[in-house]
């Protein structure tokens, strides 16, 4: 190699070294920017997720004196004033536009899930009371007949089906009787939300909306899943609107049906004979795990505890989380997309909590469920994978 060539080669080497350094710098810069952006992105979601207590102006939800305009104001045709200075009670906020097309209404900084609305394909996790609401062509078989939305049903449906007196509930004992004239309320002794040891619905849920609920441990109403006292779980930030199979509500279940903080136990507080927990219907009413003969469809059991074992069972066919027939988990995160032997059947695997477009508040039309010829991975066949075909 001539001197000139060596010089050129050296210059070349120096140049490529310099270029490599440049690339390295650029790469490092990109990495830093990417990391920062990722952190910022994550932070956005983190902020939303960790604290769901109500934010916003007091006046968005409360009316201090109920005196606006010099005349008594009404919400949804109901006359006030309303408890806890609310603008129309529970439904004044959560059912403020029954015929409207918004499933989540934003008022100031507060996002309010609507339990009664008319948005197409907008039903939230618990369904939509619209299907049973008086004035909107209701079908009472499709949901809970909530006071303020529907009239009370006729006997025997004026009492919760499978009701058992004085069952143990978080913090106390359930009602000793369910009087026929007692209609279901949103919260309190005769409802689902709040502390059911307190009869008054508003007193039972008092303060929950202003509680730091970044940790859901069931210790207080505010720190319970969806203010269902004693129940735990992971709350989807949009109440499952546009949920995906890896971003959904995380329901808590217990494969041994011996816990009181599961979502199914909450249902069992009123529909006791449907739940195998010893405090409720127990094995006498529902049957036993590993037993071939269930007396009623079980709840709070895992696929692994079925008769004959999980291996080779039809339940092995349910592998990806289904929003149509969701399952519960021992420690739910809301991000599970795999279903396995430890996944837990719950009441909400088949039913909605409030109301649905199907009879029996089911997630699907039971009349369309056909053994041997049903559409696979739908309705009952999501779990019972071998019943749909020969």
């Amino acid at each position, binding site marked *: 190699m001539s001197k000139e060539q060596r010089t050129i080669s050296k210059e070349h080497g120096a140049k490529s070294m310099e270029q490599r350094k440049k690339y390295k710098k650029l790469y490092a810069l990109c990495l830093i920017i990417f990391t920062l952006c990722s952190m910022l992105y994550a932070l956005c979601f983190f902020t939303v997720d960790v604290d769901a207590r109500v*934010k*916003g*102006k007091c006046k968005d939800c409360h009316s*201090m004196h109920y005196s606006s305009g010099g005349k008594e104001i009404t919400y949804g045709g109901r006359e006030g*004033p309303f408890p806890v200075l609310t603008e129309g009670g529970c439904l004044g906020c959560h059912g403020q536009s029954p015929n409207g097309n918004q499933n989540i209404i934003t008022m100031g900084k507060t996002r309010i899930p609507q339990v009664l609305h008319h948005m197409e394909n907008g039903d939230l996790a618990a369904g939509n009371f619209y299907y049973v609401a008086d004035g909107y062509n209701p079908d009472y078989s499709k949901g809970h007949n909530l006071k303020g939305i529907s009239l009370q049903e006729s006997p025997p449906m004026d009492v919760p089906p499978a009701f058992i007196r004085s069952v143990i509930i978080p913090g106390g004992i359930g009602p000793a009787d369910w009087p026929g004239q007692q209609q279901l309320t949103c919260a309190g002794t005769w409802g689902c939300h709040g502390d059911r040891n307190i009869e*008054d619905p508003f*007193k039972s849920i008092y303060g929950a909306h202003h509680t730091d609920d970044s940790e859901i441990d069931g210790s207080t109403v505010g720190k319970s899943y969806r203010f269902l006292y004693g129940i735990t779980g992971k709350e989807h930030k949009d109440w499952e609107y546009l949920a995906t199979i890896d971003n959904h509500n995380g329901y808590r279940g217990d494969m041994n049906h011996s816990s009181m903080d599961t979502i199914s136990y909450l249902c069992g507080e009123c529909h006791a004979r449907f739940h195998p927990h010893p405090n409720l219907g127990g094995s006498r009413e529902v049957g036993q795990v590993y037993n071939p003969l269930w007396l009623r469809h079980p709840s709070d059991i895992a696929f692994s505890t079925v008769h004959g074992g999980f291996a080779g069972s039809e339940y092995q066919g349910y592998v990806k989380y289904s929003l149509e027939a969701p399952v519960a988990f021992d420690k739910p995160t809301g991000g599970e997309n795999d279903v396995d032997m430890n996944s837990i059947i719950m009441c909400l695997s088949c039913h909605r909590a409030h109301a649905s477009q199907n009879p029996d508040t089911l997630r699907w039309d039971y009349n369309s469920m056909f053994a041997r010829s049903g559409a696979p991975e739908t309705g009952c066949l999501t779990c019972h994978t071998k019943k749909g075909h020969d």
Partner: protein
Amino acid sequence: MKRQITLILTILSLCILFILQPSKNSSAVVTGDCEACHGLYPGMMEEAEPGKPPQYVLKNVLCVNCHSNADRDTIKMLGGARVPVVYNTVSPVRPLAGGNFHYVAKDFGERKGHNVEAVTSMDDRFKRAPPGYDRLADPSIIGYNPEKPLKCAGSNGCHGNRNVEDPFDSIMGAHHADDSIIDGSTTARSYRFLKNTNNVKGVVGLEDDEWNQNRTSKKHNEYSASIDLLCASCHGNFHSKNKTGKESPWFRHPTDIVLPKSGEYTSYNPDVPPPLGNESQRPDRPDIRIYSPDAPVGREKVPKSPSDEIKLGEDIVICLSCHVAHSGPYESILRWDYEAIIAGEEGKGGCFICHTGKGE
């Protein structure tokens, strides 16, 4: 010796007299030049037949005229008398306890104050009737007449005897009467001449000698629940237990109830915790907080001097805990900007002085 004893007794007597003489603040009897108040305008008093008392003309504006100021001061001198200003035509400096009608007189919006005649026109929003008016809660034999404007005093006003329609007649003589004792027995002896009617006991309280112009936690008016009864005369639905609910759940924001010594209220006025080393920090006095002039309370028994202590479970939430009486810069005559009270964002002040758990 006898002379010495006489001298000592004389000095002692003079000392006692000096000590016992009424302080300048203990009485609000107007002193000074008559003309300063009674001769504001030529023709202010109309001619009367011989033997009959002269009559005032322009009655509807006279209260306001005396208690107004063209500059920003909220206490003015008039013929040697200190006059509290309720209406500054320019933006007031340090408005008094009742607020200042400046905010409702200007185009700031009529929700910022009581629409008193001679300050502003009758209101449209509330259709001239006091919001929440309950005739049964109004002890006035005349009652509020929505066809007529709100006045300073009389049956359509707040001050004086509300069994008398004419504002001047209703407050007649009060400015010249001895009000060294505020016991609600007469208009003059009622807190700020708020007698309500002659059939009921007037408002009692401790009157700050500067009308709260320089209010602090240690120096301020002292209110009692009796002031709520006066408010309720026109806004009865906001006071009656039948209309507000009974304890929990309330249907309207309660008033005339004790500030609870539980829950979020135990942190009342969180920005000013009782000082360390103070007696209030002792375990035997856990229910003591520091008075906030921004969210004052009433006392079950009016103290002889203002106190900077709040006794949880004893002191009373009153209408004036949230509102001022006349007018203020904020809507609903609130002491603070309700629009700026945001729950859940670590807000301070305003509603959160009591509702300490809602701001976090």
